[in-house]
């Protein structure tokens, strides 16, 4: 069986506008969007640009819009779609070439929330953590930085300075970790208008997350944390 893939192309050296190009691709029950893209690149058109690496939904590189919804190419199967499928680069990001988005804004937002353990105690001993302490942050801990939630988030689309779902989820993940003492360093970023308060709980981020982290819940739990921080700050001299 064959399906038609309509792919939005953009060559930064020649084009002023993206345009779409169609390819006929052989499809069976196990053909993923990434498989189809690799087929096109190897058999039909070596100029097609896209990112990919692991092919098993862990590297977060092959993010594309499939019929307008952000998806991981390797985890999305053409058997679930009609005869014509539209592939576009991730929404809300600039496009470098074809299906390759410029995700520098996202990487910068990640850095801003310090998504790593901050603990000034330079202890030689390993940090002990109980299953209960692990359970507190575990549901927010498996982000693969694929950026799908940014493409699902209209608030990031409207305001690229909004830190966005993944960065705020990671901030919440480390704030909830019993080994971490960096909350005070992260809160100023979260308390700003581009922090947790940029979110209006559209909730689509949680729908598209390939790791089912519920970033919308994490961001809004961050609002409770930020509101608490707001009240505490009023009583501080």
């Amino acid at each position, binding site marked *: 069986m064959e399906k038609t893939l309509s792919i939005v192309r*953009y060559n*930064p*050296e020649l*084009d002023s*506008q*993206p345009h779409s190009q169609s390819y006929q691709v052989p499809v069976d029950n196990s053909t993923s969007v990434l498989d189809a893209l690799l087929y096109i690149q190897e058999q039909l058109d070596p100029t097609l640009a896209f990112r990919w690496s692991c092919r098993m939904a862990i590297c977060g590189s092959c993010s594309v819009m499939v019929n*307008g*919804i952000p998806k991981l190419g390797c985890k999305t199967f053409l058997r679930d779609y009609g005869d014509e499928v539209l592939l576009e680069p991730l929404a*809300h990001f*600039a*496009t*470098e*070439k074809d299906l390759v988005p*410029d995700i520098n804004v996202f990487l910068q937002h990640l850095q801003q929330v310090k998504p790593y353990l901050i603990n000034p105690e330079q202890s030689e001993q390993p940090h002990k953590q109980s299953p209960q302490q692990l359970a507190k942050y575990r549901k927010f801990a498996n982000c693969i930085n694929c950026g799908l939630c940014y493409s699902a988030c*209209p608030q990031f*689309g*409207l305001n690229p300075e909004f830190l966005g779902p993944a960065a705020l989820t990671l901030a919440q993940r480390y704030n909830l970790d019993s080994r971490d003492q960096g909350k005070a360093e992260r809160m100023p970023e979260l308390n700003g208008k581009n922090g947790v308060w940029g979110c*209006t*709980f*559209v*909730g*689509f981020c949680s*729908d598209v997350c390939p790791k089912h982290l*519920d970033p*919308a*819940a994490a961001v*809004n*739990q961050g*609002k*409770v944390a930020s509101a608490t921080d707001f009240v505490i700050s009023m009583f501080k001299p």
Partner: protein
Amino acid sequence: MTEQKVNSSSTPKPYHSELSAFWWLKHRYYLLYMLREATVLPLLFFLGCLMYGLYSLSQSEQHWLGFVAFMQQGWVIALNLLAFVASLFHAKTFFELFPRVMPLAPAALMIAGQWLATLGVATVLFLMLGAG
């Protein structure tokens, strides 16, 4: 250091597209979000009715009867029916979001408890006003 002049036509430049003001029409999920936000419009109409009632109560019986007649007009009833439906849609979304923002108990339990509260309030109001 001197700045190098580059030929802009040969410099690869990423393509930026701007989000249209009608982004929310593009997907069912976004449309439902906008609908949720718009539930406050019929709410405002009902709040206006309540304030009109309060005003007429503070004036005279004549004013009060005028308010009653206002509330009985077809278009007012239709808008208040819309407000009621909107309040239920708002309640559904609000009750489902609450356990995600404050996970205090199993989500299903929290959602059921909140609906029970809404039903309880309606019942009490009904008994107070309807069975007097």
